[in-house]
């Protein structure tokens, strides 16, 4: 073990002569400024892999913030098993409990970096941990092993103590699992090592993988906590990456966490779409639209903000011009991406408006073709689907139905010639209806 460096500022003011009075004043100001702007103390520790605990020489007080980052590779079965290596995250307890039952901290990852304060109970450290000290005393870091003599390699830990964000942890992932999959559980904001007020800023940002919209959606909230107090916040109808900044006096700390989607059950989606269009001629029609548009997904697994998780389902062609169950335009409303109920409501409302447009277009066509009958309500739904889809057109010759001569009068035919893709879209929506 070696303590590589613990930089501390030790003022050494001169006081031998009044001549230096002004210099001393300046120095005092400098000392005050430096202490106010001082970075938190940081210490690098070489972990001794062949013993249980490595003292760090760092004394912490209860409630003080600690951030530990560790890296390196250890072979824990040197000479017998070259591939038996691990980084400070070690191996999950469930996978090693039988092979290493005698580790010093059963239940924590085997061959992982662990810690304790003042000789208290061990806690998992792994490659990264931020916590508020639950006790006072010296921090020790160690290896959760049962045989130490065969350990080789190198682990290095960097310990930062002082003011820190204890929660949310960097990289934490919160999903919209509450309120029918539209809201997050409560997220706790808590600082460690703070004296007095802590001013928080939580800036949420969301942009699809195709950088839509540009600039991204932003939503920022600010609040205060006192000393070691905490604040709970819930996120509803929004998600993305949240950059958290905590400021105590002149000290500022930043971390980031993610709000992702949650799987919305098919049954809930169907119930929702049925309720929104219960008065329609084909009450289940919106389930077919959602199936065609999104295969019934508001969120799907993909990589965004460096994290593979459930993110709003984006149109593949352009990486996000349209989004969610009804593939609504992303740039119009952040909620289209994050609130499946808002997304479906908007889609159905738009479709109803298209039904009205279809009725107007039908009347116009009938006016131009005397004797042509009115379309049924189901036929109007077909026409409205073309208007809702990407092949919508104002051209009377590009609607789902077109007039054609029949004897001395007129009749309607499906307009395959005028708008083949529009007709195909409408038909596939009808044929994709969910019946359960």
């Amino acid at each position, binding site marked *: 073990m070696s303590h590589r460096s613990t930089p501390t500022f030790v003022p050494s003011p001169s006081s031998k002569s009044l001549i230096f009075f002004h210099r001393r004043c300046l120095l005092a100001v400098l000392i005050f400024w430096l202490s106010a702007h001082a970075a938190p103390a940081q210490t690098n520790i070489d972990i001794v892999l062949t013993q249980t605990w490595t003292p760090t020489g760092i004394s912490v007080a209860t409630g003080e913030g600690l951030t530990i980052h560790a890296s390196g590779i250890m072979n824990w079965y040197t000479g017998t098993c070259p591939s038996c290596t691990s980084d400070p995250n070690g191996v999950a307890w469930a996978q090693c409990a039988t092979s290493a039952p005698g580790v010093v901290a059963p239940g924590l990852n085997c061959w992982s970096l662990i810690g304790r304060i003042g000789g208290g109970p061990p806690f998992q450290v792994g490659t990264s941990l931020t916590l508020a000290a639950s006790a006072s005393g010296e921090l020790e870091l160690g290896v959760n092993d049962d045989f130490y003599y065969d350990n080789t390699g190198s682990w290095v830990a960097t310990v930062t103590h002082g003011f820190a964000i204890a929660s949310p942890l960097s990289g934490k992932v919160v999903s919209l699992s509450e309120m029918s999959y539209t809201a997050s559980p409560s997220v706790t904001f808590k600082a460690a090592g703070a004296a007095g007020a802590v001013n928080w800023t939580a800036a949420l940002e969301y942009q699809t993988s195709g950088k839509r919209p540009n600039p991204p959606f932003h939503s920022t909230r600010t609040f205060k906590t006192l000393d070691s107090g905490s604040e709970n916040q819930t996120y509803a109808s929004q998600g993305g990456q949240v950059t958290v900044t905590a400021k105590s006096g002149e000290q500022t700390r930043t971390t980031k966490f993610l709000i992702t989607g949650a799987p919305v059950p098919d049954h809930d989606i169907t119930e929702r779409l049925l309720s929104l269009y219960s008065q329609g001629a084909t009450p289940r029609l919106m389930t077919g639209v959602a199936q065609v548009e999104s295969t019934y997904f508001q969120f799907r697994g993909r990589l965004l903000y460096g994290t593979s998780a459930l993110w709003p389902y984006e149109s593949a062609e352009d990486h996000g011009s349209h989004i969610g169950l009804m593939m609504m335009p992303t740039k119009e409303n952040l909620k289209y991406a994050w609130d499946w109920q808002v997304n479906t409501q908007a889609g159905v409302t738009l479709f109803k408006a298209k039904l009205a*447009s279809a009725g107007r277009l039908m009347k116009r066509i009938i006016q131009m073709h005397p004797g042509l009958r009115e379309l049924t309500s189901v036929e109007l739904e077909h026409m409205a689907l073309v208007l809702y889809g*990407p092949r919508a057109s104002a051209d009377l010759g590009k609607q789902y139905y077109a007039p054609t001569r029949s004897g001395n009068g007129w009749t309607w035919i499906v307009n395959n010639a005028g708008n083949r893709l529009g007709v195909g879209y409408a038909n*596939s929506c009808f044929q*994709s209806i969910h019946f359960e």
Partner: protein
Amino acid sequence: MPKQRTPLIALLVAFGILAAIGVGFAAPPVAGLRPFGGRSAIDAYLRANAGEAYEDATLGDYRVLDLDNDGRADLIATVDYSGRRFFNHLLVLHDGGKRLTVQVVDAWNIESLDGAVQDLNGDGRVEILLRQSLTPYLGAKPMAGWTAVFRFEGDKLVDQSERFPQFYDTRILAPIERELAVPEGDSKAPYDKDLLTLERDKVLRVLGRVPAAGLDWALSLARSEDPVRRIFALSVLAEVGGSEATAVLKALGEDLDPQVASYAVVAVAGGNARRAGE
């Protein structure tokens, strides 16, 4: 649209734009010229002059330019009729002096006209590059497209893609071939190579180099277990035609996947309707 309408040039003069820019419209195209007043003026102009073509429409991007070098300003604008920002049509308002003509050109997903107005052959007249869909819309799933070259001929924009082989060789086919040469495992997304192949084959057909380009590949895609690939196949089969393609299309009309079946049925019916019309 034979009705006399307010010429766009009058609108611009009213705003003093000609004085402001000091450019004669007889000069080469003034692509990118934006009238004083911006979007709201264009929106009002379209409402006043585009008639039914701008009913229930949302304005996307636009350019004021001289399409035919007659010294009068014309307008092109992308519009959405769905209410979902699918900018799949280009409105063309051509000021012919005595009358204003309105044309609607099908396109695909043109949010921006940046780079769409170019003089590809250096003859001093603009060409309009418009993205077109090659495969049906499948919601969030991928779809293929290609870029067509339009040019003002007579009194309207006409697809003149086949007249620009150099453009396709250097700016479309060469990059596609480079991408297709990358080993399969390095592909970014599962359909990337399919989409590039569809676009390449379409260009080869348009240029008349390989009239049935992609047919064999489409026949094999039609047997794919992936319905998205079967839909890719039916797009090629419907365009290339022929007895074998038609037989496979009819079979796809019975596909268990509702989207495959729907688009195959309309492809067959659309082909029949076109032939009947001819």
